[in-house]
């Protein structure tokens, strides 16, 4: 409980520090797209309006404080390139990113967990070796390459799924989610395998077998819950890398998601948009990490007891 309170208390300062760092970096943008939009013949009022919006006549900390107060009111600023409200853009794009990442994590957990358990049950056999080799080969393949191969197979050759973009229905999410899941599966499989092997060697498992419980029951009620803790932690940590993978996949499939937005903003030198996107992504990541830590505390009573010292 103390641990959870401490984590919750640290959440906001961490976010503040991150946003300040991003803010400072973007202040260094030399001549952003904003000034490119205003041409030389523009009147003084346009320049003055831009200056008022970005508070260019105030010191750094005052600008940052102003930015924070704006965010609290829901105003993320205006995109320098398109002039649209940043907050609205972010909300438009958020669902796509969330759907893909949630689907990918679920699929990866299911498939990776299944294969990992099989590998652990058959530990030491040829099947186990084969699975290990295949997962290490899979871990070395770049995600976007696998995605392109998937596209060329399923979309171009077989015409089962759309090549890129958005549209009606879920078919546009399938390939991107599959690509991201394929990036997660090797690491997850290895982790599940080693975690289950470790749990299987513990005393309480042999007790369960000794009591005469069926093998399936032992796995379901004793092995898997105990093995779940490192897996949950791993998923939390991977969510950080997941964002990186998502960015690539979104650009590849031209999906209107947060990652693609951030890349576009970076290449266009659009500070407000980039700031908003990065802030949102960082917040999501911190939330996931917090949820994972709390889940771990809830899952394993041993950790709960240990944490209260």
């Amino acid at each position, binding site marked *: 409980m103390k641990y959870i309170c401490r984590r919750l208390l640290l959440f906001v300062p961490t976010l503040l520090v*991150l946003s300040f760092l991003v803010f400072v970096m973007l202040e260094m943008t030399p001549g952003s797209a904003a000034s490119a939009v205003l041409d030389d013949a523009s009147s003084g009022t346009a320049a003055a309006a831009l200056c008022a919006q970005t508070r260019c006549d105030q010191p750094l900390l005052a600008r940052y404080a102003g930015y924070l107060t704006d965010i609290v009111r829901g105003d993320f600023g205006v995109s320098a390139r398109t002039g649209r409200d940043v907050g609205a853009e972010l909300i438009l794009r958020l669902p796509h990113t969330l759907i893909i990442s949630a689907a990918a994590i679920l699929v990866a957990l299911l498939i990776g967990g299944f294969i990992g358990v099989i590998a652990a049950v058959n530990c030491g056999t040829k099947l186990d070796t084969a699975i290990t080799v295949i997962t290490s080969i899979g871990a070395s*393949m*770049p995600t976007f390459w696998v995605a392109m191969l998937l596209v060329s197979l399923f979309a*171009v050759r077989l015409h089962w799924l759309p090549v890129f973009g958005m549209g009606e229905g879920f078919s546009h999410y399938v390939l991107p989610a599959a690509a991201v899941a394929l990036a997660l599966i090797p690491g997850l499989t290895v982790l599940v395998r080693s975690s289950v092997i470790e749990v299987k060697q513990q005393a309480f498992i042999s007790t369960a077998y000794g009591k005469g419980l069926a093998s399936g029951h032992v796995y379901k009620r004793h092995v898997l819950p105990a093995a779940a803790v490192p897996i949950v932690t791993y998923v939390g940590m991977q969510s950080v890398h997941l964002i990186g993978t998502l960015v*690539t996949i979104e650009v590849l499939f031209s999906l209107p998601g947060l990652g693609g937005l951030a890349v576009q903003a970076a290449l266009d030198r659009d500070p407000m948009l980039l700031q908003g996107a990065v802030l949102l992504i960082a917040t999501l990541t911190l939330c996931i990490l917090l949820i994972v830590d709390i889940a771990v505390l809830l899952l394993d009573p041993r950790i709960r007891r240990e944490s209260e010292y």
Partner: protein
Amino acid sequence: MASRILASQRRVESIPQLLLPPFPTRGFSLRLKIAAVMLLIIGAVAVTAPWIAPYDPSAISPSDRLLPPNLDHLFGTDMFGRDLFSRVLYGASPTLQVALGAVIIGALPGLALGMIAGSKRGVFDQVVTQIADAWNALPGVLVALVMIAALGRSVVVLVLALGISSIPTFYRMVRAETMRVAAEPFVEAAVSLGACHRAVLMRHIIPNIAPSLLALVTISVGRMLLATSALSFIGLGAPPPSPEWGSLLAEGRAHMEQNWWLIWFPGATIAVTTFAIYLFGNSFRDSR
């Protein structure tokens, strides 16, 4: 006399792995041999590319556009008629340089901070660990995006961004390992015998964390390789016509439906190189 025996015993106990190779000396494991050979080949290719490449990688030849692999062009040609094989060969060096540079930038501070935090504990440890946790929440891609928006698109920015965002990973691992070794009895013995902090670090802690550290560094090179090729693919890497492998994939993407070789060969090269690096690193870890 007694102190000399004690000292030599201490030495043997505490530098078991730095001088001895970190794998069983009865025979190099097969995995390690295969990985080492692959890495040597790739490294040699990266260095000698200007001499062994059959064509100039930037030589545009409109009459030879989009040829499939044949005897003249082992990997085929791209949409400008440039030989893909030469481009892949030339691309080894910049790609590997970025990956290695990023790992060095991330590993050195992470190592130093991790060892200090792990052995000294206290306020420094708590503060830096909190900062590292916060820093860990920012994906490397985002850091790269922000830095590129601020500083422009270049190889240096890429290396810096990836390196800086990987510092917490090294820090955390080195700190955990240092804490583990610091709890060993021989460290306690050294301290009670009067060893100063620096001596404890140099003579006891570093040699004992070296194997897992080497494994982590090696595997990080592999991860950085994948990350840099991903960033080049998005368009944040070295500007064209740099034959970095990620850029090759980006270039080939537009024409990939009819011309499979444009993405198969560069992608397979990335995969094979990363696989060799992982194999090499894993054989360290498993043979402690």
